[in-house]
C-alpha cells in the first residue's frame, strides 16, 4: 500500500485518533465532511470510499484526527476496501464513531458487535432517521443505547442534525472505562442483532401513505425491467441532452463571446506592449499561443460540458440510480466478463479514469479489477475528452459524436470478451445491495459540483499550458514539421490526416483532450474528423492514469495498457480510413 496520497497523514499535533466506521453507504463520508470541512466524495451506493482519508477536528480546544474508513458489512474481508478498514481498526484508536443506518438496523448491528469486541470506546450515530421515519420505522435510541452499552445519538447527517451531540460524546468517552464485551460467535451475533432490533424498533404500515415523496413512489418501479428499463434509457438520453445542449448553450452564449471580445484583445494588447512581433510573441499569443489556447481550450470550450456532466453525475450518484442501472444491465455485463455492479466504476470513468480505477478496489475479484481497469482507459473517454470531442465533431454533426461512441461501445464489448477469455480466474456473480432511492440534497450536490469543477480547473490548467507552450515552440521553430515528416507514413498514409495532426500523438499523452483539440483548426473533412475522433478516443491514457495504473497494479500493467491503447487507436483509425479509401476506389471504378 502506498501512502503518498494527500489527506493520509495523521497530524502530529493531534491528541486523539477517532475512527469513523460503519456499513457501506450509511453516511460516514457526509459526517466526515461536516466535521473536517474536507470535501470527501459521497454517493448513494456502497463502496464510495475505498481508501481512508484523515482530517482534523478541534473540539473543546483539543485536536483530534478523524479517519473516514471505507464501509464494511463485516470484518470478514471480501474486498480490498474492507481489508483497509480492518487494518485501521487493528492499528488502534482513542474512540470510534460507528454510523448505523436506521432503515436497516438489524444488519448494521452485526458490525456494531464486531466493533465493540475491540473494546475501543465507541459512540453510535443512528443516521438517516428522516428516511426511516418516512418508511414508518421508529427506533428507540435510548433503549438501543442501554442494550449496546454505548451512547446512541439519532441524527440526519446531511442536515447536520445530531452531529454536535455526537462529537461531544466521541470526546467524552475517550479514556473512559469500557464495559467489557464478551466475544460472540457469528451466529450468536445474528441472533442478538435480531433480538435487539425487535425490541427497539417499531414499524407502522405506510404503504398507503400519501406523504411519500416522488422518489419513494418510483423506488419500486426502477428495479423491474418494466418500467425500469425505459426509465433508465430515458434518463440516459435526458442526461446526454442536458450535457451536450447545456454545454453548447453556455459556450456559445457566455464563454466564447467573453473570450473572443474581451480576453483575446486584452492579452494581445498586453503582450504587444512588451514583446515585439516575432517568435516569442507567437509562442505567447500567436496561432498556437499558449496564453490564448491555454485558456480557450480548457475554459471556453471544454469547461461548459464538464460543468453539466458533473451536475448529471452527482445527481445520478446521490439518487441511487447507478446501482439500479447495474442491476438492469447485469445480463449484458456478464457477456463481457463483468457483473452489473461494475457499471459504477465504468460510469465514473466518463468523469475521469483515476477514480474509476481506484473505485475497482470495491470489486471482489482481481479479474474484475483488471478488466475494468483495461476497458476504462481504452474505450471510456473522460469528461474533458468527451467535451473536446463534442466540440470537434458535434459542431459538424451530432451523428459523428454518436458514431464515435458507438464504435467505443463495440470495442468495449470485444475487449471485455477477449479479456474474459485470456485473464485467469473468475469474476464473482452479482450480489448487490440496492440502496434506497433518495432525493439528492441540493446543497450537497451543489458543493460536490463546485469541488469537482475546482479540481478540474486546477488539474487541467497547468499541464495544458505547459503542453501548449511546448507545442507552440515546436510549431514556431519548425520542429513540428520535421517530426511530422518522420511519422508521416503513419499519420498521412495510414490515417489520412494532415501532417501537422501528428502533434496530437505527442500532446495526447499529457492530457486526453489534447489528443482532440489541436485538430480543431486544421479544417478537417468529415471522414478525417471521424478518424481523428476515433484515434483520440482510444489513444493512450493521460499521465495521471498511467501513474494510478502503475500504483494500483504495477508498472508493467500500466505499460501494457499504454501499448494496447496506442495500437488499438492507430489500428482502428487506420482501418476506417482505408475502408473509406476502398469505397472511394470502387466509387470511381
Amino acid at each position, binding site marked *: 500500500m502506498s501512502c503518498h496520497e494527500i489527506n493520509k497523514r495523521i497530524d502530529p499535533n493531534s491528541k486523539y485518533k477517532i475512527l469513523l466506521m460503519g456499513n457501506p453507504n450509511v453516511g460516514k463520508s457526509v459526517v466526515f465532511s461536516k466535521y473536517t470541512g474536507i470535501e470527501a466524495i459521497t454517493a448513494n451506493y456502497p463502496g464510495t470510499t475505498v481508501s481512508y482519508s484523515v482530517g482534523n477536528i478541534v473540539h473543546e480546544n483539543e485536536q483530534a484526527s478523524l479517519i473516514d474508513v471505507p464501509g464494511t458489512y463485516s470484518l470478514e474481508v471480501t474486498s480490498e476496501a474492507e481489508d483497509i478498514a480492518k487494518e485501521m481498526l487493528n492499528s488502534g484508536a482513542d474512540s470510534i464513531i460507528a454510523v448505523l443506518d436506521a432503515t*436497516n438496523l438489524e444488519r448494521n448491528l452485526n458490525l456494531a458487535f464486531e466493533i465493540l469486541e475491540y473494546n475501543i470506546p465507541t459512540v453510535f450515530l443512528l443516521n438517516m432517521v428522516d428516511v426511516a421515519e418516512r*418508511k414508518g420505522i421508529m427506533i428507540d435510541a435510548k433503549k438501543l443505547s442501554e442494550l449496546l452499552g454505548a451512547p446512541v445519538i439519532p441524527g440526519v447527517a446531511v442536515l447536520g442534525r445530531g452531529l454536535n451531540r455526537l462529537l461531544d460524546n466521541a470526546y467524552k468517552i475517550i479514556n473512559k472505562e469500557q464495559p467489557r464485551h464478551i466475544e460472540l460467535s457469528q451466529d450468536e451475533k445474528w441472533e442478538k442483532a435480531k433480538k435487539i432490533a425487535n425490541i427497539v424498533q417499531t414499524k407502522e404500515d405506510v404503504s398507503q401513505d400519501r406523504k411519500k415523496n416522488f422518489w419513494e413512489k418510483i423506488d419500486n418501479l426502477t428495479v423491474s425491467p418494466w418500467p425500469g428499463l425505459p426509465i433508465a434509457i430515458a434518463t440516459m438520453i435526458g442526461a446526454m441532452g442536458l450535457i451536450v445542449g447545456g454545454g453548447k448553450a453556455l459556450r456559445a452564449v457566455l464563454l466564447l463571446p467573453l473570450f473572443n471580445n474581451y480576453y483575446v484583445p486584452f492579452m494581445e494588447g498586453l503582450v504587444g506592449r512588451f514583446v515585439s512581433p516575432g517568435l516569442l510573441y507567437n509562442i505567447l499569443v500567436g496561432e498556437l499561443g499558449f496564453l490564448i489556447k491555454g485558456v480557450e481550450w480548457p475554459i471556453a470550450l471544454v469547461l461548459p460540458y464538464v460543468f453539466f456532466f458533473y451536475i448529471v453525475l452527482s445527481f445520478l450518484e446521490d439518487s441511487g440510480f447507478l446501482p439500479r442501472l447495474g442491476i438492469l444491465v447485469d445480463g449484458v455485463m456478464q457477456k463481457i466478463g463483468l457483473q452489473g455492479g461494475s457499471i459504477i466504476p465504468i460510469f465514473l470513468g466518463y468523469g475521469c479514469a483515476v477514480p474509476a480505477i481506484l473505485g475497482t478496489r470495491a470489486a471482489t475479484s482481481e479479474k474484475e479489477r483488471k478488466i475494468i481497469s483495461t476497458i476504462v482507459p481504452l474505450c471510456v473517454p473522460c469528461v474533458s475528452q468527451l467535451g473536446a470531442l463534442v466540440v470537434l465533431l458535434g459542431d459538424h454533426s451530432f451523428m459523428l459524436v454518436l458514431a464515435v461512441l458507438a464504435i467505443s461501445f463495440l470495442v468495449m464489448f470485444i475487449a471485455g470478451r477477449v479479456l474474459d477469455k485470456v485473464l485467469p480466474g473468475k469474476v464473482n456473480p452479482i450480489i448487490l445491495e*440496492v440502496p434506497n432511492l433518495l432525493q439528492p440534497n441540493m446543497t450537497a450536490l451543489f458543493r460536490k459540483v463546485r469541488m469537482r469543477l475546482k479540481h478540474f480547473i486546477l488539474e487541467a490548467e497547468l499541464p495544458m499550458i505547459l503542453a501548449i507552450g511546448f507545442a507552440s515552440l515546436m510549431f514556431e521553430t519548425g520542429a513540428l514539421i520535421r517530426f511530422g515528416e518522420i511519422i508521416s507514413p503513419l499519420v498521412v498514409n495510414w490515417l489520412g490526416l494532415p501532417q501537422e495532426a501528428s502533434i496530437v500523438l505527442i500532446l495526447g499523452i499529457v492530457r486526453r483532450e489534447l489528443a482532440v483539440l489541436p485538430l480543431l483548426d486544421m479544417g478537417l473533412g468529415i471522414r478525417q474528423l471521424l478518424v481523428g475522433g476515433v484515434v483520440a478516443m482510444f489513444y493512450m491514457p493521460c499521465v495521471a492514469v498511467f501513474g494510478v495504473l502503475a500504483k494500483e497494479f504495477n508498472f508493467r500493467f500500466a505499460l501494457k495498457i499504454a501499448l494496447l491503447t496506442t495500437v488499438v487507436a492507430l489500428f482502428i483509425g487506420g482501418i476506417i480510413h482505408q475502408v473509406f479509401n476502398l469505397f472511394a476506389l470502387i466509387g470511381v471504378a
Partner: protein
Amino acid sequence: MTMTTFSKNKLGKILSTPESTLLKVLGVRAGKDFIMKVTQPFGGPVIIEIDNRKIAISQVVANEILVAEC
C-alpha cells in the same frame, strides 16, 4: 425449491444458502423471510427484499439458495 423458481411477490423463507460471507452479511441467511420481487431479463439477477432492503442476487447464486413458501 430454489430461489430462482420462487413466485413473484410472495413471502418466502430461506432454508439454506451456499457459503458466502457477502450473502450472510446482507441478511441472506437460513431462517430469514424474504419477498421475491422480480427477475431481470438476459440472465440478470433476481431482486428480493429482506429487512425492507432490496438485494440483487445473481441467478447462478440464487439457484443454490433453497427456499420454502411461508
